[in-house]
């Protein structure tokens, strides 16, 4: 915090940081100045005029600059007109009056003006009950409008701006919060005002409508019911709902969320999640969420395909079984094959689940494998960002390198925060094999040929060039690395090279310095901490083994894995929902969804955060850690499972990095700015305050003072396709066919079809046009997609999004063939 200044608001002396505006300053002192257009996260615009107050400033002597005194007090001069508190900065000696008759008159007038074009349809409005206009009308408005109500403007109700957001033109009060959010914060100006004067209205001309992964946030900050989400429209009244804290499980950012739930007849009297709301954590997601998190996070935990009973294979068919029988069957099979016992688990699981799995495997001498295409987690343990990291603190003089990752697609909130760091002056360097959305905000964009990743990093490490020197000289530096165009080997090598770069340039061991993995799943980092590692050749690792698969669908994902599992000795699958993998299992254990139980996850920034049981348990499902303990018992191993907190306690004792942590420390909250989530939704929006924990960041070895030795990775020869081949490269797509997204339904249009991107030259070589269907085939896998021309892609390369139907894990030489006659719609 910078310099402090002192001013008087309604007779109360308050001290605030210089540069704050009067609304925020008063807020900090607990004095409410009503606002509509001002939002503490955005630049003030002074449009709505709700915040008009009287402002007096001390008169200064022209010559000396000192205050002119009068009766022993500084002489205060008031302006003849009221002033907007949102656009005026608090100044030393300023006197603000927010309660005079003049001010109240102005407030009454502003509310009356606003209501002349408002339909007052509160009884049917989704915002009713948490509506700033409603609240401020009650508090500051006139009892009655003098406007001839028959003269109100009417517009077609509820226009879809896209599939996710509806616009009700009549309700809009023109505060421009949504427009400004999209422009200033999201950096995607896909909303704007059309027309002018009282005909002004919101439009979106993007294709598809309101094309931004941050669109849901506008409904939180809209001070009326003009913008509402498709999934919550007419869903429930705010006051009927309960709120429970959780963590979004869609990506490694670990956004803090609140589930709003309600017991309802429409769901057979069950309690259901009605919507997902952001929960403030200024160090993680501030007060925002991406649409993937908001619209799909909970759906996969619901639905018909949920497993509620254990199942056992009998005469080639899966039949219902008791827990005892199922556990016994699996226990016996695994006991008989201890040497070949393999645990395959994913980062969809909690720390506690993964810990019990690891303990079991270790005790019986089995193997653990992380179900992921991405390696390098042991390096983030070593040189990950230091405890105390907050991306909001990065700015001028700092550097952020984003390597082989499209943050917009893989971890949208990181994209948003890196973009903001760039706007604060941080040097953002984006290095990737193709164009990404972050490019336009980056100071430097490095475009390498897929295969040249290590060379690119070593050039950065060498110094001498402008970008390399700027990175080296940065006060703080963070590197994000991801799996764009890379598999397990490639990412591991890149992680090592990035770690080395950070070490060589002295950017490890402190807050706001270090390495962050842009993982494919929410708790991959936790899995690494606990000792899970991905493997280069999963098919090989599974073949002929006795496999315990938890939280993964290898059969559905890749025909090679399916084939390998067919040759397995035994397969036990622990899952939420039916899948291709449960179909081939010998035993199926129904697991509880994260919304039904407690637990903790570790974000990419190595922040351990807790989630809380929100919904009642479905059927006989049990938490993963408990099922593992029961299975362990069958195998003669005793594991704790009384509760998630008990498991966590043992975990914290067993793993050094976790040593000081307890469930209580994870649940601690700090005071945060801006203040949101009280009775003041007019101020910050409907974001929830954080009452259940901001989490704790692990201390990386480099920060703990340990020796940092980074193994040099051997460089593999880059793959170069022959004339009739392409280099098929996996990239990540936000809305994919993964079960966590697909099950939401409303995102189907955004998931779309598989698009395979090539540049014009490659397209020409393939004799392909945009929109045609191309067949891609390589060792054991194949698929079809629609040709998309993207000239930011290198020649000879075809980009294939992961989890869209083609089982691609790493770059691979493939054949591409245009299907004749097959032209997509």
């Amino acid at each position, binding site marked *: 915090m910078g310099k402090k200044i002192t001013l008087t608001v309604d007779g109360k002396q308050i001290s605030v940081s210089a540069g704050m505006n009067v609304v925020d300053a008063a807020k900090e002192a607990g004095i409410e100045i009503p606002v509509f257009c001002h939002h503490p996260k955005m630049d003030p615009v002074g449009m709505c005029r709700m915040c008009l107050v009287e402002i007096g400033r001390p008169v200064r002597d022209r010559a000396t600059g000192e205050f002119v005194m009068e009766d022993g007090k500084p002489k205060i001069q008031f302006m003849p007109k009221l002033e907007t508190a949102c656009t005026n900065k608090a100044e030393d000696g300023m006197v603000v009056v927010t309660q005079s008759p003049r001010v109240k008159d102005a407030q009454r007038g502003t509310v009356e003006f606003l209501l002349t074009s408002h339909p007052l349809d509160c009884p049917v409005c989704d915002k009713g009950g948490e509506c700033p206009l409603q609240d401020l009308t009650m508090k500051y408005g006139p009892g009655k409008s003098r406007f001839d109500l028959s003269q109100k403007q009417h517009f077609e109700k509820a226009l879809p701006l896209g599939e996710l957001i509806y616009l009700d033109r009549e309700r809009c009060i023109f505060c421009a919060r949504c427009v400004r959010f999209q422009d200033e914060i999201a950096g995607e100006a896909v909303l704007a005002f059309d027309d*002018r004067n009282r005909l002004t209205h919101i*439009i979106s001309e*993007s294709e598809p409508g309101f094309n931004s992964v941050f669109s849901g946030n506008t409904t939180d900050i809209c001070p009326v019911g003009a913008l509402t989400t498709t999934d919550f429209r007419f869903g429930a009244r705010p006051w009927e709902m309960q709120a429970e804290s959780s963590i979004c499980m869609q990506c490694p950012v670990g956004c803090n969320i609140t589930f709003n739930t309600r017991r309802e007849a429409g769901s057979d009297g069950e309690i259901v999640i009605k919507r997902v709301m952001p929960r403030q954590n200024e160090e993680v997601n501030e007060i925002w969420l991406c649409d993937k998190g908001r619209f799909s996070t909970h759906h996969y935990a619901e639905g018909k395909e949920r497993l509620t009973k254990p199942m056992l294979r009998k005469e080639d068919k899966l039949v219902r079984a008791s827990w005892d029988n199922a556990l016994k069957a699996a226990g016996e099979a695994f006991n008989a094959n201890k040497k070949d016992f393999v645990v395959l688990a994913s980062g969809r699981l909690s720390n506690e689940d993964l810990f019990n799995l690891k303990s079991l495997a270790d005790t019986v001498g089995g193997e653990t494998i992380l179900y992921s295409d991405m390696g390098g987690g042991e390096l983030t343990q070593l040189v990950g960002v230091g405890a105390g990291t907050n991306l909001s603190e990065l700015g001028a003089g700092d550097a952020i390198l984003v390597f082989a990752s499209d943050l917009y697609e893989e971890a949208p909130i990181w994209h948003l925060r890196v973009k903001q760091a760039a706007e604060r002056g941080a040097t953002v360097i984006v290095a990737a094999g193709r164009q990404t959305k972050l490019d336009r905000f980056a100071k430097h964009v490095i475009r390498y040929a897929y295969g040249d990743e290590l060379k690119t990093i070593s050039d950065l490490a060498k110094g001498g060039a402008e970008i390399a020197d700027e990175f080296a000289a940065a006060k703080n530096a963070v590197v994000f690395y991801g799996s764009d165009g890379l598999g397990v080997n490639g990412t591991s090598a890149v992680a090592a090279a990035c770690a080395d770069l950070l070490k060589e340039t002295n950017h490890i061991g402190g807050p706001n310095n270090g390495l962050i993995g842009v993982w494919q799943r929410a708790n991959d980092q936790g899995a690494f901490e606990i000792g899970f590692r991905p493997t280069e050749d999963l098919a090989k690792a599974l073949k002929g083994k006795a496999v315990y698969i938890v939280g993964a669908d290898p059969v559905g994902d890749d025909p090679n894995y399916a084939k390998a599992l067919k040759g397995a000795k035994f397969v036990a699958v622990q899952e939420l929902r039916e899948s291709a993998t449960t179909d081939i299992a010998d035993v199926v254990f129904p697991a509880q969804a994260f919304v039904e139980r407690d637990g903790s996850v570790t974000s990419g920034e190595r922040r351990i955060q807790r989630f809380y049981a929100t919904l009642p348990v479905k059927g006989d499902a049990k938490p993963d850690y408990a099922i593992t303990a029961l299975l362990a018992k069958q195998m003669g191993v005793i594991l704790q499972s009384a509760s998630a907190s008990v498991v966590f306690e043992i975990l914290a004792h067993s793993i050094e990095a976790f040593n000081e942590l307890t469930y209580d420390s994870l649940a601690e909250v700090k005071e945060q700015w801006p203040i949101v989530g009280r009775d003041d939704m007019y101020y910050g929006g409907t974001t929830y305050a954080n009452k259940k924990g901001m989490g704790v960041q692990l201390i990386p070895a480099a920060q703990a003072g340990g020796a940092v030795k980074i193994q040099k990775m051997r460089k593999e020869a880059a793959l170069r396709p022959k004339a009739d081949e392409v280099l098929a490269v996996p990239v990540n797509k936000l809305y994919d066919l993964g079960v966590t997204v697909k099950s939401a339904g409303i995102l189907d249009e955004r998931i779309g079809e598989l698009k395979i991107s090539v540049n014009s030259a490659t397209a020409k070589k393939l004799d392909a046009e945009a929109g045609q269907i191309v067949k891609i085939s390589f060792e054991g896998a194949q698929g079809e997609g629609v040709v998309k021309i993207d000239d930011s892609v290198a020649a000879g390369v075809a980009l294939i999004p992961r989890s869209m139907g083609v089982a691609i894990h790493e770059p691979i030489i493939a054949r591409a063939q245009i299907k004749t006659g097959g032209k997509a719609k």
Partner: protein
Amino acid sequence: MSLEQKYPEEVKKILAKYPSDFKRSAIMPLLFLAQREEGFVTKEAIKDIAQLADVTETEVVSIIGFYTLYHDKKEGKYRMQVCTDLPCALRGADQFLDKLCENLGIKVGETTEDGVVTLESVQCLASCDRAPMFQTQGPDGIKYHDYMTVDRTMELIEALKGKG
């Protein structure tokens, strides 16, 4: 054909007026350019301009909406925009416009059957001393017609119809 392909010289000249990192300033002149032939800005032109100025299409549409001289729909080839603001009205502009409507058989805001003239009533055009007056907005830009009478206006309309 894109706007740039169609008018390479004009586009270059327009972009040269503004600093290269503030291309957005070129939106307004580009819109006038795009409107030249059809009398309104087509969807394709909106795309082109968004690209040239490095903004979204939504932003371009939003600018078209704000300013009255941009149009997103086809109307008459010439828009005849009669000033009926206070100073002109004090000199008979309203009666002048009424008479024109009568002669043309259309109401304000409507277009003659042959699609040549759309009659509009607009705000002050800075020609208050020369009322009644109007401007025509057409393929050849915007032209003022000062000190008008109904007869002379009808002659002008005949001439425009001849051109069309």
